[in-house]
């Protein structure tokens, strides 16, 4: 875990004092709303449908138990006793009052957290693999470099008023859990033939109105060149990116319109100018940061208790089979705690649940928690012998849902229930689908399947890369939902194909069920997952199920 030093603390105190003053100046009229808006956005404060919303960064998704407890306290004291974890490793509070926000920010600063650059046309919270530092398949922990980028991008004077928002993700594992190809910049930690560490740099990916898969701008960037190279990319984009049309302002369009080769030439030229300005101090700081992320002292113990419980208790076994992932240390597991109880709002956790998770992280998880872009909470380091006790405690807190990676583990943006940009609701659609398949008891038979729902074209719910994607639109004043099929968010990222005409709000769940029935019909065996079946048979069987002949002819 990174621990703030005096510099970080002073910066944050100063920044919070600035924002407090800005709020006061807005209230006294010296700042107009037009001027205040980008300043509040830069500090994570939105104005949504029913209230303000504060988006707090959870850098690279990592939290300590003390931080989690503070998040719970903030939700209880200034919100309605809960928080919403997002697809960008943030937590959102849906009901703060303008005058309380400076106090909330001060409370966050007490535990080394902030809401800086969680919105606005600037470099956003840097995200990383939520299994970082624990995954068995990892080449290197991406969090130290993500922290370095956080420091470099924070309050960067050149990049606070970019053409549009700018998102960076880092993965240290070949199995990409950070969706790096759908980011403005994606960094994959790799080794060259000589065994030296560096980065593959991907630029111009993104979802939203014009989904694009990122392109490789540098296949091997030496470690020490990272910051000047990032600075070169963003600097080139700042001048070249379009400012006449917000739908064409993201770097994916800049890359698309100018061509990756032109962008690469400009970036390399700028990089050559910037490189000499970096003395190498950043690499010393990186090594210091790496020290903060040293692995905990894993213990060696018998896993007998685990094995016994696994054999004896089917509920525990089902939970283990879906919610555990391989850990790199012997006898350990990565535990994913589902925030997708059937019928609950995806990604929401109450203050009590957050405190429970903090207590469990302290008792069983080396004091670490992670937030995934799939809106779940992860205890990255749990010894298997502690799993039965952990599971009992989770059950008591209604946190033991065994559905990770299954059909009810749905990503959903807040949609029209909260978001001012939304064109339709997402949350109730997710709730209904989860409840339907729970009633049908089909979830485990279906196996791994990712449904992702966005309530507008901006695609916060990543619908383009869902195996089944659902996009809510406003069709002449009525909610209408378009379904896409075959998307994939991993290292083989693919944008899903639109299945056909949209469905009314009350038809969506039936439509999803028809897709699933078609899959169960055509799959070769229970081992063939939905996405594999889709790749083998294409869209036709699903289209036929979605749009039966008689309605097409009608």
């Amino acid at each position, binding site marked *: 875990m990174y621990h703030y030093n005096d510099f970080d603390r002073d910066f944050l105190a100063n920044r919070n004092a600035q924002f407090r003053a800005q709020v006061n*100046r807005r209230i006294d009229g010296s*700042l*107009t709303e037009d001027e205040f808006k980008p300043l509040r956005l830069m500090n994570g404060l939105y104005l949504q449908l029913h209230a303000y919303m504060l988006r707090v960064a959870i850098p690279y998704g990592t939290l300590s138990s003390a931080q989690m407890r503070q998040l719970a306290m903030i939700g209880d004291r200034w919100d309605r006793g809960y928080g919403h974890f997002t697809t960008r490793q943030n937590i959102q509070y849906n009901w703060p009052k303008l005058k309380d926000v400076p106090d909330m920010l001060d409370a966050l600063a007490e535990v080394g957290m902030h809401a800086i650059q969680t919105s606005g046309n600037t470099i956003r919270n840097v995200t990383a693999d939520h299994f970082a530092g624990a995954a068995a398949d990892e080449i290197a922990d991406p969090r130290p470099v993500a922290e370095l980028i956080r420091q*470099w991008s924070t309050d960067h004077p050149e*990049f606070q008023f970019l053409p549009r928002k700018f998102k960076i993700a880092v993965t240290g594992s070949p199995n990409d859990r950070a969706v790096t190809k759908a980011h403005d910049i994606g960094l994959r930690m790799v080794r060259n033939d000589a065994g030296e560490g560096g980065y593959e740099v991907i630029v111009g990916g993104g979802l939203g*109105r014009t989904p694009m898969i990122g392109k490789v701008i540098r296949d091997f960037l030496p470690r020490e060149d990272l910051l000047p190279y990032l600075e070169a990319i963003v600097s080139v984009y700042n001048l070249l990116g379009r*400012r006449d049309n917000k*739908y064409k302002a993201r770097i994916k369009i800049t890359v698309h319109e100018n061509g990756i080769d032109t962008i690469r030439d400009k970036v390399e030229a700028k990089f050559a100018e910037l490189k000499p300005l970096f003395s190498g101090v950043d690499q010393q700081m990186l090594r210091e940061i790496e020290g903060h992320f040293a692995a905990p002292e894993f213990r060696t113990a018998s896993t007998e208790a685990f094995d016994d419980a696994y054999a004896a208790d089917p509920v525990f076994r089902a939970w283990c089979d879906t919610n555990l992932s391989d850990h790199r240390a012997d006898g350990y597991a990565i535990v994913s705690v589902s925030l997708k109880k059937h019928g609950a709002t995806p990604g929401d956790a109450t203050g009590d649940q957050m405190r429970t998770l903090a207590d469990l992280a302290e008792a069983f998880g080396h004091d670490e928690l992670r937030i995934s872009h799939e809106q779940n909470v992860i205890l990255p380091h749990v010894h298997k012998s502690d799993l039965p006790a952990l599971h009992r405690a989770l059950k008591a807190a209604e946190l033991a849902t065994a559905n990770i990676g299954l059909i009810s583990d749905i990503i959903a943006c807040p949609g029209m229930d909260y978001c001012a940009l939304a064109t339709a609701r997402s949350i109730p659609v997710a709730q209904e689908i989860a409840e339907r398949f729970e009633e049908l008891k089909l979830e485990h038979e279906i196996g791994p399947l990712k449904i992702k729902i966005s309530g507008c074209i901006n695609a916060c719910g990543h619908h383009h890369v869902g195996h089944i994607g659902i996009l809510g639109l406003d*069709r*002449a004043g009525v909610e209408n939902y378009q379904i896409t099929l075959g998307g994939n968010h991993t290292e083989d990222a693919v944008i899903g194909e639109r299945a056909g005409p949209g469905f009314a709000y009350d038809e969506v769940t039936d439509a999803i069920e028809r897709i699933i029935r078609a899959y169960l019909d055509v799959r070769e065996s229970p081992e063939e997952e939905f996405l594999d079946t889709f790749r083998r048979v294409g869209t036709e069987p699903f289209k036929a199920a979605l749009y039966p002949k008689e309605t097409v002819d009608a």
Partner: protein
Amino acid sequence: MPEAALDFADEPPEAQAARIAELNDRYRHHGATSVLQGALRDPQAGKLTLVSSFGAESVVLLHLVSVIDRRTPVLFIDTQMLFTETLVYQQELAERLGLEDIRIIRAADAAVAKEDPDGTLHQFDTDACCDLRKTRPLQTALKGFDGWITGRKRYQGTSRAALDFFEADGPDRIKVNPLAHWAPEDIRAYMDENRLPRHPLVAKGYPSIGCAPCTSPVAPGEDPRAGRWRGQDKNECGIHIVDGRVVRRSEPMNVIVTDAGFRQDDWQGNAVLDLASDTDPNTVDLSAAPGLIRVDFPSFADGRGFTIARQLRLRGYKGRLRAHGHVIADQYAMARRSGFDEVEIAPDLAARQPEAQWQFRADWQRGDYQSRLRG
């Protein structure tokens, strides 16, 4: 109504080029009215139509055409996504100007049913929507004409800087641009002098008006008054050069902000290099640069000036560097860290954000992560 045969169908490209060159020669020194008058009657121009969006500035050309010949065909593309205000304005204007041949063109129903059955195409592919609802219907409608009259103007962009009155539009048609030489002031003045009705959405802050889903009053984060402010600044800016000498006008003076607070402009040199926010800093000739460069901020949300300043410093510029325009107090530290020495703001902004608010960020070196990382 059957269309008359076209005069210039199947014209070889060389012949078309020669004809356009002749037309441009003939009307080189003419104003918009006589270019339009000539074009509508000149056999060499062929059969023309006016294509109008009935948008913010369209009334000028519509009025010019109505005065010359109200029977001129006017094509209006109804994308079926337009603002109600535009549809109402179109009808009112046609009536008021007495235009007798307005042709409303739309995408074919079959094409819409096939490509955009639920009217949501614009939400996920704006280009395809424009193609379906605008480009293709227009291309079809233009087939009956030798050329079309447009309202394009040189000032609208660098690619139009060399815009001629007459130009080729593919092998089969020409474009006539009577307003090529008009500046924004000319448009405003013409509308004022002829008391022409404005598009109702202009008053609501829409700088240009297209289809409802894809038009918003201003860019996100941009001050809707930025446009007005720009104009005002132009008139009020204190420094103008007449016969090589700096002349100060009597309007209120802009305020210069430095680490020490507000002061009057002390610049005594005789020239200032003003850079627009879309300048490529690598093309600025620094050997000829005077002692003061001002970089324009048309809106505080346009952050290009910060990168321009940094790049000028990277290239070795050591003179005074000033951020000029809509920079707000909260950006002072960013401006200083990017390489600016000072900020120049208009008096009304200085009144709203007084010295103390700028002084609050005078400690711009505090908490600078970037300098720390560069070492």
